């Protein structure tokens, strides 16, 4: 009898110790809360869009749609966090730049083109290159000049949106070509939002890269102890630099989704405050914000949990300018729970309870 209990307790603590436990637990709490408050939250209906194509709609689809942007960003942000022990706060501004580049390449100098100048693919590649260049800029500041990541990326955070506006001469290009809207909306005939598929592609590529290269291992090694990783023949400067360039790539993908949503751009508000959500996704995934070990799956799940929270708050008519306050509460809980002193206390309490049960 006592033995099985002990085993159960052991099993439970094993689950709790799993990193994925944190985002899954958060997801479950949110899901149960919604189930009790209003089960219609989980209703998904099949409808048709104004162009007559089938689309799924419902809160869960909305979460899938917007959460996917965050998930893509979370991939890059996790690597940056793990390698450099800091976060990139310029992703929102960088998305504005990437989006601006896409529109610039597609429209040329004419802000209201009848026809696109080139294919979207070419524009996207251009945006990737530019975004990776800006990622490289951040990377050099952090890796080579050893500037704190938040301080280094503050430069682009401040200047990015002006650069984005400058790329298009302060014009606000609008694309009338309907196919351009597919990336942030729906592909005709497929009822699931396209951003989800884009996110899946990104996740699969990331999973393959992490499995078949040493990127994950090296990144963690650099994050845990830079000196010893250098002694083991790694180049910490390059690994950190690389993580920022990869984040640049993620930024370009999100930039494409964002400008595709409305087929236009607004430099000052596009992807506003998205950096906070991306960082929160990494934190919610149970990754140490001070770098080192990371769990990519937990971060990606964390991104969807953040969007789950946002959508839930919208559903309950929480004033949208109060949303950051609610997210702040989540951050406080996470940070406090992950503080070493609190962890030690908790495990003590756990041990005491356990001891009592066994006795």
């Amino acid at each position, binding site marked *: 009898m006592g033995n099985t209990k002990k085993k159960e307790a052991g099993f439970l603590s094993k689950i709790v110790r799993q990193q994925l436990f944190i985002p899954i637990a958060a997801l479950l709490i949110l899901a149960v809360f919604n189930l009790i408050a209003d089960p219609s939250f989980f209703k998904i209906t099949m409808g048709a869009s104004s162009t007559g194509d089938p689309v799924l709609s419902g809160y869960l689809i909305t979460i899938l749609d917007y959460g996917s942007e965050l998930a893509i960003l979370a991939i890059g942000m996790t690597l940056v966090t793990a390698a450099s022990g800091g976060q990139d706060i310029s992703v929102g501004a960088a998305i504005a730049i990437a989006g601006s580049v896409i529109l610039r390449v597609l429209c040329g100098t004419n802000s209201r083109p009848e026809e696109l100048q080139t294919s979207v693919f070419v524009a996207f590649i251009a945006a990737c290159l530019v975004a990776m260049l800006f990622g490289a800029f951040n990377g050099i500041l952090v890796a080579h000049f*050893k500037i704190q990541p938040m301080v280094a990326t503050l430069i682009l955070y401040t200047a990015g949106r002006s650069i984005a*506006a400058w790329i298009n001469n302060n014009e606000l290009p609008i694309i009338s070509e309907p196919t351009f809207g597919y990336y942030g909306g729906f592909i005709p005939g497929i009822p699931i939002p396209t951003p989800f598929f884009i996110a899946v592609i990104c996740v699969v590529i990331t999973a393959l890269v992490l499995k078949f290269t040493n990127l994950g291992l090296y990144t963690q090694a650099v994050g845990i102890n830079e000196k010893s990783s250098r002694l083991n023949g790694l180049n910490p400067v390059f690994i950190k630099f690389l993580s920022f360039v990869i984040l640049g790539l993620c930024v370009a993908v999100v930039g494409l989704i964002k400008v595709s949503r409305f087929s236009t751009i607004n430099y000052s*508000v*596009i992807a506003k405050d998205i950096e906070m959500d991306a960082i929160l996704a990494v934190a919610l995934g149970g990754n140490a914000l001070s770098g080192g070990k990371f769990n990519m799956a937990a971060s990606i799940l964390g991104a969807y949990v953040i969007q789950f929270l946002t959508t839930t708050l919208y559903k309950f*008519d929480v004033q949208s*300018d109060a949303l950051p306050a609610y997210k702040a509460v989540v951050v406080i809980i996470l940070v406090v729970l992950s503080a070493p002193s609190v962890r030690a206390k908790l495990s003590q309490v756990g041990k005491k309870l356990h001891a009592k049960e066994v006795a």
Partner: protein
Amino acid sequence: MKKKILAAILVLTMVVGLTACGKKAATDTGAKDDSGSGLIKVGIINNDPNESGYRTANDKDLKAMFTKENGYDASFAYSLKNDEQITAAQKFIQDGVDYLLLSAADTAGWDSVLKDAQEQGVRVILFDRTIDADDSLYEASIVSDMDKEGAQAVEWLAKQELDEVNVIHLQGVMGTAAQKGRSGALDEKVAAEDNWNIVTQQTAEWNAEKAQQIVQSVIDKGDKFNVIYAENDDMAKGAVAALDKANISHGVGKDVIIIGFDCNKWALEELKAGNWNYDGQCNPFQASYIDEIIKKLEAGEKLSEKVVVMEEKGFDATEITDDDVNTYGI
């Protein structure tokens, strides 16, 4: 250690470079030797032209008016931050401009710098935004009447004689003059009429993405609505994107009435195409008003009134013409 020094130097040069650029941009035409050439020296302090389409149009309009050909020697300074604007104002006063044109980022904190201006004989004209300062400190103030913009839109909506008006109200950044004016009129009407209801009232902070999420949330919830009152065009666009996804028809003679503000050119085109119903103007073309005032002051005339309210229109989708789109679109 070497690296650290190198980094420090690089950062320093960059910072210096950036500020140098900024200052240059701020005062590049403010050359002092022009003072004898008969040009009227004006210092223009505006918000960042990237802030919105409104501001871009506003800046273009000012730049087109205050040229050498028109007898002006103009210097421009841009910032969304009040303290930076105040610093720029002090600089303009030191440079000895004749007129200081000001669109203040914030209403507070301008007293002392405007007193300085008065002592130095610099005349101040406010445009677009008012400030909390004694009105003896400035010559004139050219503003939009946001309350009137809202009232016009609400009046238009009332004329549509709907049996029931269920509004999704998308507000701008809370506390801004545009938000207060445009919200105020609708709030009053909803409180006064029994068949006017607010389905949801949320700030989307001028942001299309947020507006889309808010409207999406209402659609997902299954609430009924037949009017979207968005306090700028971007938010109306976001709302329409959500409607399109859910196959809810909108526009002239359709299920949902779309109301936007600011008269962006693309928005007026949507109006012309019948996808939206109403767009209220927020007039960014203040330069001609300012020019007139300066001419009067230079001629020694007295201004009849201190606050000049610009004329602003509201466009109905059924009446708008191509001319309107081209003339009033920003």
